[in-house]
């Protein structure tokens, strides 16, 4: 994957999101406190928000270029987006949700994984005929992943996929996310404010604070294991000033 974000500017309520980055990892984490601009960045990449300046391209395809007046609508981007609550379609059953993209797609998709393959990897078999209202939090999250995968995305954006889940469920969902990563080879951009998730899933992490990337590096280096149950953000190494 090669996601290029250049001179991006997106004014938000309290600050301006500004970013310049080339992302090439399998799983990239966007880490930061609530309100740091992480979700807004995902929405901008998905084409759900228009930046006021900048350029975004994915594997050579220009998605947004404010200067050139290019703005590909979300349905033409081939980018999957799974918001925090999954945002499942409650008027459809699980099967209707999973097959939604196959029914509505107007733009040619890349080769999609088969329905059966996705159902098997995410263990959705027993859920297919169920109503959305009868699913647990973890089940909803898996259906949301499956629905996004079946649209054959070139990139999967996941907004706090574990935030609304109980702690015991998190490990289970993390292992499903690993399976998605390994089985379907779809690069992912993962938003979280939990360091453990970053370490468990991400190759590289960008730390955002009030709309800017303040640090960037491999997850294992950025987050040092701490004696407490949670990882802490490692302090940047103080460099001796030149004499």
């Amino acid at each position: 994957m090669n996601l290029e974000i250049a001179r991006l500017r997106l004014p938000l309520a309290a600050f301006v999101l500004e970013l310049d980055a080339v992302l090439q990892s399998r799983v990239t984490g966007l880490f930061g406190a609530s309100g740091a601009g992480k979700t807004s960045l995902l929405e901008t990449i998905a084409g759900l928000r228009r930046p006021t300046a900048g350029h975004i391209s994915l594997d050579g395809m220009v998605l947004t270029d404010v200067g050139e007046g290019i703005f590909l609508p979300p349905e033409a981007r081939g980018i999957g987006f799974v918001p925090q609550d999954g945002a499942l379609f409650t008027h459809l059953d699980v099967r209707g949700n999973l097959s939604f993209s196959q029914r509505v797609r107007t733009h040619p998709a890349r080769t999609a994984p088969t329905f059966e393959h996705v159902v098997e990897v995410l263990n959705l078999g027993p859920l297919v005929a169920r109503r959305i209202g009868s699913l647990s939090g973890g089940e909803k999250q898996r259906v949301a992943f499956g629905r996004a995968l079946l649209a054959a995305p070139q990139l999967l954006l996941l907004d706090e996929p574990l935030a609304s889940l109980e702690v015991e469920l998190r490990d289970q969902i993390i292992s499903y996310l690993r399976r998605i990563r390994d089985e379907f080879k779809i690069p992912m951009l993962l938003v979280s404010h939990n360091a453990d998730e970053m370490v468990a899933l991400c190759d590289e992490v960008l730390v955002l604070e009030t709309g800017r990337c303040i640090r960037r590096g491999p997850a294992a280096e950025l987050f040092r294991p701490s004696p407490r149950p949670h990882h802490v953000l490692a302090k940047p190494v103080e460099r001796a000033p030149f004499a």
Partner: protein
Amino acid sequence: MSPDAWQVTWFTAWVAVTSTLCILPPGLALAWLLARRNWPGKSIVETLVALPLVIPPVATGLILLKLFGRHGFIGRWLEETLGVEVVFTWKAVVLATAVMSFPLLVRTARVAFENVNPRVEHVARTLGAGPWRVFWTITLPLARSGVIAGAVLAFARALGEFGATVMVAGFIPGKTETLSLSIYHLVQLGRDGEALGLLAVSVALAFGAVWFSERMLRKAVA
């Protein structure tokens, strides 16, 4: 019921259904625009749409008469280009009931559209659906209870319309005679018994419509 009473009941129901069907497409489009988009003049359009709810129906009828009459701005154009005459025909009855029930449909449908989580629509876009498809496959199905409730309220309002109808369509037996006009006319003639019969029909129709609408709204909230 006398054959006349049947005819009046049938005509009234037919007018209410026709006017509701006529206002559905523009009403839903406007409700969606009010719920989901910001545009210049939005508040003025919002106020204009609500106006028939608050000004006397007779005044609304007079405005329609002036606009659609033979010398009216729209009426003259319709007659000259299409050869269509509106006032004092069944078309005027449909017009009056449509204008009077339009706000009820728009306001109810607007709330229904506003209650659909935009995030769900966003996700549908990322799954490959264009804006039009999102409306038909996501927004409208999720708002359907509220939309149906709005349509039924509009239908019920159309059943009982009096003031605007009498201004723009007059009272022409067998031609523009609705239940409410008929009841008024019968009372004027002192035929209270027949009027009470029609009253019972009106109440039954309106009760059924509002009951159905309330049921739908409760479903929408649940």
